[in-house]
């Protein structure tokens, strides 16, 4: 009978696109805000 596609960790009712926070084919959760790269000025990369 196939899978319950609503239980794969994707918010299928989201009004926004899913791809910008897609965690990948094995991820049970979308990426969190802090997982998403943001192009900050290179001098901010002090780590």
């Amino acid at each position, binding site marked *: 009978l196939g899978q319950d596609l609503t239980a794969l960790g994707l918010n299928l009712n989201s009004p926004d696109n899913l791809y910008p926070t897609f*965690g*990948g084919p*094995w*991820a049970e*959760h979308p*990426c*969190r*805000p*802090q*997982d*998403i*790269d*943001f192009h*900050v000025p290179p*001098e*901010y*990369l*002090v*780590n």
Partner: protein
Amino acid sequence: PLGAVPLQKEHQQQFQMMESAYYHMPHPSDSERTRTYLPRNPIHTPPYYIQQPLPHSDTLEFYQRLATETLFFVFYYMEGTKAQYLAAKALKKQSWRFHTKYMMWFQRHEEPKIINEEYEQGTYIYFDYEKWGQRKKEGFTFEYKYLE
């Protein structure tokens, strides 16, 4: 009515390779820039915190309401994220400047007493990784999601 079809030899070889790869699955951080303090493996926010990001939490106004220390923490610990970018903007709104040579934030004092070609007199804020590293060893953890 199609029924099962036996795997051909070529597919059996492919399956063998796939099966061995199955035991070395990619790790989430394999696809992300190296982030020392923000690994991709989820740190579950304890139930007593709000589980969803606060409304408008990725706007400058939200960051302007955060304490200065929090802004520094976000800047140094959430490197390469939108949070760092907004924290930097909020700090600049509070007349802090980022010194690209020393990789530090500093705030001019009203009447600068000593000004030499090295640097202006003022309050310099930097992140002492060694000290923090020290505290981290004491088992100190923090929630990435909420820094309040």
